[in-house]
């Protein structure tokens, strides 16, 4: 299909010539834009010009000011200084409605659509097709299906949104923005929860939108995506714009140095420890989503589980943890067969699980940091049925200090912390507990480089005390650099096992993807 086809689908009729018309003149320009909260700068006065039709990546650690910038541009929060020019005209951007009216839209990491409505209803939400005040259901489903087909998404428009994977929902959210005449579209870490295939579909969609003249701002922690997608990249650090580079003139090391003044070797810091006794062994363990998994974890060892999302890794570890029942096979704990029937059994043995989703599984967001940190150990903090408040506070303070969790007080709600600091709580609550086996499921998703490095250093500390670690990650460099033993999962089975760095990235990836390589959708621009 051509741009024109795509453009005709979109509400505002994006004109393909727009891209050529003003390739160099900025579509959106910031002059001295700043945001202060009670005297502290979340964003220091910033000058930045977005060229019309470019893909502009923005990178930086958590707290560097990326979210503040997005919120300012989408009218979610008011600025405290400076000016914004939209096609040369000063604009207020005081409300989200005004931003959308100009064509400024954002696609967020966590999908904000209605899970109980159909895909078609979501795409047309707020702009329903009506006749005589009645909805034209069939018309909307047909239109939506056409949009999905054109974008190469193999999805039925009448499906319930909530029945789709997070990745598919993300694609729908993007398609929705695309059909609404977005001229300036901000992606906030869109691939955090996507599989590789979904990620590639999203990239193809982004490129297609760019070709039709939409300016894209792309925020991500994943460097390889930035280099794959962006034309230019801006780096933020501590609320300051450190610099903007053409993607051709820079490299990953330079960007990371700009973000943190630290090199990549220092991030994946790995100490080797002598491997001790076997802590955990599974023999032909099967359950919902995985089959015949046999592996061991020894003292001082990091066992990496690599695979695509949905490969059965999370199901395997949550079953070991007692969240789901196993269907067959055995689990041995320090040489003895154990029957872990619920989470409590696993915790009692000394297994700790930092789950995949902080929001849904890891934290009580509305409750204090100290409660979250102490949740697994309250039975130990109670004496004669009563909790010792001093012990409760000192335990929490110790973790806050040791892990350098940035929070105003221990009684601040977990929701008020940044993503990286929330992740530290999810991990930190098990440190008080003193477990022997730590399971980390995607511990660094949505976490900035600095916090990543801290989390990896924490791994070393745990290993040095004789603990074992199971590390699940969809980010290959992470497991590759850190795992002593790396198991590759595909479709619920363990398809390969490698010792530390004994295989190449390509080998591992091929194993994870299976014999048939992933099939990216054609970009449609040929």
């Amino acid at each position, binding site marked *: 299909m051509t741009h024109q086809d795509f453009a005709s689908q979109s509400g505002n009729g994006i004109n393909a010539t727009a891209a050529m018309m003003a390739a160099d003149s900025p579509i959106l320009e910031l002059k001295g834009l700043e945001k202060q909260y009670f005297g502290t700068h979340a964003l220091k006065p910033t000058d930045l010009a977005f060229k019309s039709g470019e893909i502009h990546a923005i990178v930086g650690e958590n707290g560097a000011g990326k979210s503040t910038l997005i919120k300012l541009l989408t009218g979610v929060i008011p600025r405290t200084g400076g000016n914004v020019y939209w096609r040369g005209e000063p604009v207020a951007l005081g409300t989200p409605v005004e931003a959308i009216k100009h064509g400024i839209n954002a696609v967020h990491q966590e999908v904000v659509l209605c899970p109980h409505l159909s895909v078609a209803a979501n795409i047309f939400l707020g702009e329903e097709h009506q006749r005589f005040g009645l909805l034209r259901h069939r018309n909307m489903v047909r239109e939506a299906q056409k949009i999905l087909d054109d974008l190469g998404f193999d999805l039925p428009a009448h499906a319930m949104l909530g029945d789709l994977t997070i990745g598919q929902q993300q694609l729908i959210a993007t398609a929705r923005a695309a059909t609404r005449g977005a001229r300036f579209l901000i992606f906030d870490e869109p691939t955090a929860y996507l599989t590789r295939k979904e990620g590639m579909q999203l990239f193809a969609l982004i490129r297609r939108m760019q070709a039709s003249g939409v300016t894209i701002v792309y925020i991500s922690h994943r460097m390889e995506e930035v280099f794959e997608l962006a034309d230019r990249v801006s780096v933020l650090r501590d609320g300051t714009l450190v610099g903007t580079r053409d993607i051709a003139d820079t490299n990953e090391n330079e960007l990371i140095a700009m973000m943190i003044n630290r090199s990549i070797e220092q991030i994946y810091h790995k100490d080797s420890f002598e491997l001790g006794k076997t802590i955990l062994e599974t023999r032909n363990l099967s359950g919902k989503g995985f089959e015949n998994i046999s592996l061991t974890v020894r003292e001082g060892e990091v066992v990496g589980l690599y695979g695509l999302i949905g490969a059965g890794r999370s199901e395997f570890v949550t079953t070991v*943890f007692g*969240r789901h029942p196993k269907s067959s096979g055995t689990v041995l704990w320090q040489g003895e067969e154990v029957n872990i029937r619920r*989470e*409590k059994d696993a*915790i009692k043995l000394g297994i700790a*699980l930092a*789950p995949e989703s902080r929001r*849904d*599984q*890891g*934290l*009580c*967001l*509305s*409750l*204090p940091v100290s*409660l979250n940190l*102490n*949740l*697994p150990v*309250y*039975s130990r*903090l*109670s004496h004669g*049925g*009563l*909790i010792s*408040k001093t012990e409760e*506070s*000192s335990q929490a*303070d*110790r973790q*806050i*200090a040791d892990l350098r969790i940035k*929070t105003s*007080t*221990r*009684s*601040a*709600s977990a929701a008020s912390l940044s993503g990286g600091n929330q992740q530290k709580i999810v991990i930190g*609550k098990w440190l008080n507990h003193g477990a022997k086996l730590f399971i980390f499921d995607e511990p660094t998703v949505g976490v900035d480089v600095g916090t990543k490095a801290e989390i990896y250093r924490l791994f070393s500390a745990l290993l040095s005390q004789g603990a074992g670690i199971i590390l699940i990650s969809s980010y290959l460099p992470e497991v590759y650099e850190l795992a002593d033993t790396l198991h590759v999962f595909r479709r619920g089975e363990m398809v390969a096992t490698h010792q530390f760095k004994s295989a190449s990235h390509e080998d591992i990836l091929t194993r994870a993807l299976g014999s048939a390589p992933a099939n990216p959708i054609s970009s449609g621009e040929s």
Partner: protein
Amino acid sequence: MSVDVKEPVISPKKRYNILFGLTLLALLLVLWLILGLSTTTFWTTNNIANLLRQGAMIAILAVGQTFVIITGGIDLSVGAIAGFASTIVALLLANGFPIWAAVLITLGIGLGIGLFHGFGIVKMGLPPFIITLATLTSLRGIGLLITNGATISINNDDFTNFSRNDFLAVPNLFWMVILVGIPAYILLQHTRWGRYLFSVGSNAEASRLSGVNVNRTIYLAYTLSAVCASFVGILLATRIGVGNPTQAEGWELQAIASSVIGGTSLFGAVGSVQGPLLGAFILATINNGANLLNVNSFWQRVITGVLIIVIVYFDQLRRRRK
């Protein structure tokens, strides 16, 4: 271990909670002052004792209800349980049971109802609203079936005198609020089960993965609520001297209203014991004052509704600003 986290003596959240409690207290005192000035009958020993008795029962219901709401649930059955319990205790006394036995059996029945609610939610997967709504309607029916629609009168003076008597010049019924309130406060603020009620209300899955026995926590909340309600049923029986399954109609809504006025969030994970107690006495004062001022009793209901909106709105304003 060096700790470089600065913890103010009173955290902002705690300060807000204290402020909120004081505001409720001030509201109560202002109401009392206004009523004292505008009527001659308000500040009489008789009326104040009456007010405390009226408020006491809703207050105890509200405390039980609050446990449930903190877990993110709701208990619609407390009024029906109270009515049912008044019938049971009256029947037992009429059949010659000693008071202590009648009271214990009635509380035991309340416990059973609470366990049933827990079972329905945890094992059958029913929403709290549904299971307790079912109990609300069927308990009244069961009570009517048992009594055949008759009212059971209580001839045991020791039992009925309890609500009329004072201790240290304060009505016995009000002492019951303290008897329930103090352990409830300790449970909620100073035990791990109190922490678990909040954590389950905030995020049940995260709690489960942290080793919290979520099911047991839910059983606990509904059992406490039902036991409080059956206790209130007993107090109600002492106060009016009869047992009737249709009594205490609509009290579940007054209990929920008291809890909400007292700062409990219907979304769960926010609540206290002292708030709902104050909320219950504010409602009782409004009803009492309206009676004294000869305000049409229909208006009392309207005023209660407006008050709920105003107080919860102010609380919302605070949250939104954060």
